[in-house]
């Protein structure tokens, strides 16, 4: 009866198992395409970002920032029973909010960037809330609503940026530069990682992950959101306002994706909203990050960093005769095998059952909860 709650490491173990297989497949592909450079190439994937000093590490964190956040957005929604495939639209709308404030409001001085970031959160939240509202009140499948909102968001942003002169740099067919005051401060990271693009956004991402972790696992609010995700009827029975919960879930997910957009476009690296009719890939990468991180906020944090680290490795892989798509292949394989978590868990459970005495074994029940 007196089972102390034990931390469940099986999720992490199965992710590591998937990563090992993915890397192995990557190595095989490298060998098949060019075996002479395969090992140095492979080594570069693993160490590329580490052998360029603190700058390389800083770059990994910089690239990790937006995908950690879209990953948190997707993962958070998953935990509450919703599939937010609309991170892409929320991301670009959030970016627009930030860029708009960054360009138009020039008199805010040192709090300018904070207001711009808040604008991105607000815009993303509004965009995310729409599928939530449609689901809560009209039972519209959130997957299809999110897909539609992706396209509407992309077109709306392109239309506005292009159509509104003060925002549009017509020489480059993209948004203008934001004011210097709107750029995210480095928060000391430039001292640790000199020469890299990493900035305070990374710290904000970490804080967001921790907040989401606490909300989901320690608060009554998180209890409600998850309960609604698992069983809408029972939640209603328990007096939870399930409509409100669904809307709030999507709104928060949207806000986090919007934040991702805001932080990226305010990073001061020369990123602009390009007038291209193409969905932002960061949103879809968020799905991968969330899944690799088993939808756990802290897992997502590491998954985001890991994928950015591999991508950086792929960047340095260009010093050899390989095309960088190998990295995408490796990541895809990793994600594929991370889907086998359930089986791996069962195997772990069987294994530990043999070792431990009965009674303290985790059930191999259905997890994953999407």
């Amino acid at each position, binding site marked *: 009866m007196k089972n102390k709650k034990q931390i469940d490491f099986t999720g992490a173990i199965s992710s590591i198992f998937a990563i090992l297989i993915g890397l192995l497949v990557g190595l095989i592909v490298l060998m098949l395409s060019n075996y002479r450079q395969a090992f140095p190439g492979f080594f570069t994937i693993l160490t590329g970002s580490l052998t360029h000093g603190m700058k390389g590490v800083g770059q990994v964190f910089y690239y990790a920032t937006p995908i950690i956040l879209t990953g948190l957005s997707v993962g958070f929604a998953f935990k509450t029973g919703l599939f937010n495939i609309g991170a892409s639209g929320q991301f670009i709308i959030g970016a627009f909010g930030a860029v708009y404030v960054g360009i138009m409001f020039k008199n805010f001085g040192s709090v300018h960037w904070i207001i711009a970031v808040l604008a991105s959160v607000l815009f993303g939240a509004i965009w995310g809330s729409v599928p939530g509202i449609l689901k809560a009140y009209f039972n519209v499948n959130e997957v299809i609503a999110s897909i539609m909102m992706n396209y509407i968001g992309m077109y709306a942003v392109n239309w506005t940026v292009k159509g509104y002169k003060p925002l549009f740099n017509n020489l480059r067919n993209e948004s203008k530069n934001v004011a210097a005051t709107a750029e995210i401060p480095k928060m000391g990271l430039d001292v640790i990682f000199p020469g890299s693009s990493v900035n305070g956004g990374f710290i904000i991402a970490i804080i967001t992950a921790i907040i989401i972790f606490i909300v989901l696992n320690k608060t009554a609010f998180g209890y409600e959101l998850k309960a609604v995700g698992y069983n809408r009827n029972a939640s209603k029975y328990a007096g939870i306002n399930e409509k409100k919960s669904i809307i709030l879930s999507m709104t928060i997910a949207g806000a986090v994706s919007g934040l991702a957009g805001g932080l990226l476009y305010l990073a001061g690296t020369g990123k602009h909203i390009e007038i291209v009719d193409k969905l932002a890939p960061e949103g879809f990468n968020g799905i991968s990050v969330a899944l690799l991180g088993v939808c756990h906020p802290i897992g997502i944090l590491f998954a985001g960093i890991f994928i950015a680290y591999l991508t950086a490795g792929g960047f340095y892989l260009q010093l050899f005769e390989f095309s960088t798509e190998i990295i995408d292949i490796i990541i895809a394989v990793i*994600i594929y095998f991370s889907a086998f978590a*359930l089986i791996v868990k069962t195997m772990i459970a069987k294994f530990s059952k043999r070792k431990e005495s009965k009674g303290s074994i985790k059930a191999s029940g*259905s997890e994953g909860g999407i």
Partner: protein
Amino acid sequence: MSVVYFIFQQTMFFAIPLLIVALGGMFSERSGVVNIALEGIMTMGAFTSILFLNLTADSLSGQGQLLIAIVIAMGTGALFSALHAYAAINMKADQTISGTALNMFAPAFAIFIARIIQGVQQIQFANTFRIDSVPVLGAIPFIGDLFFKNTYLTTFIGLAILVIASIVLYKTKFGLRLRACGEHPHAADAAGINVYRMQYAGVLISGALAGLGGLVFVVPTSTNFNATVSGYGFLALAVLIFGQWKPVKIMGASLFFGLTKAIAASYSGIPFLSNLGVPSYLFKMIPYIATLVVLIFTSKNSMAPRASGVPYDKGQR
């Protein structure tokens, strides 16, 4: 009148691939497996079949070449989707995860292989498949102009698939069993049906159709393939849900989507529409906004297969 024919034909270019792929998705979901990998499977199907078109450009052309390409596209799609089936069915994997992995894998793989084979990632092909006018049928007034002129074999294949899909789903043993698996696999199992085998069939059919959809999507609209199907796999997913997982409604949904997309893309060449002075971005957004509005009115009772997306586990209730 020619504007009507024109819009109809353009509508078909958008609607037919959506129809084929969404029907594919329907088979998978009706068997209980969510397939969000449609985008990736389309990419793979288009990749191999167009590579085939490219490689045989000197020796083959016309409908014969297209038919072989169709077989290749379907075979590739089925093969590729087997990865999803294995994960979802044998490994009881989370179906979103393995679908996402496939979506990510396909373009990377297509580019990687294209570069190895021919150096560049785009694959050129010669489109020798358009039918100016179907013999005899093309001469029928109105109907002939509408259906049998300036068309592709694939349009008819798409419509044939619709008919076959409806019959298979509702009139055959296979369809009955498939639907049972998607609604209540334990019931199917208790009735002596091999749920795993039915789900494999569903996923493989979805793969074959999505692979074909990839080819059908690319052929009329470009002269090369660049490892992407521009999000049409996700749109097909939307069409599937919009069409309430039912063949005829899926057809309706893809026509609706195809029509609004065709108008959005071609309004500038249609004097009546271009004179309205509606900004092009609004036209571009209309298909998506209209879909949302329609969904608001039609979603009250979801017809989603109940067990779709839940890995089937004998032991569980």
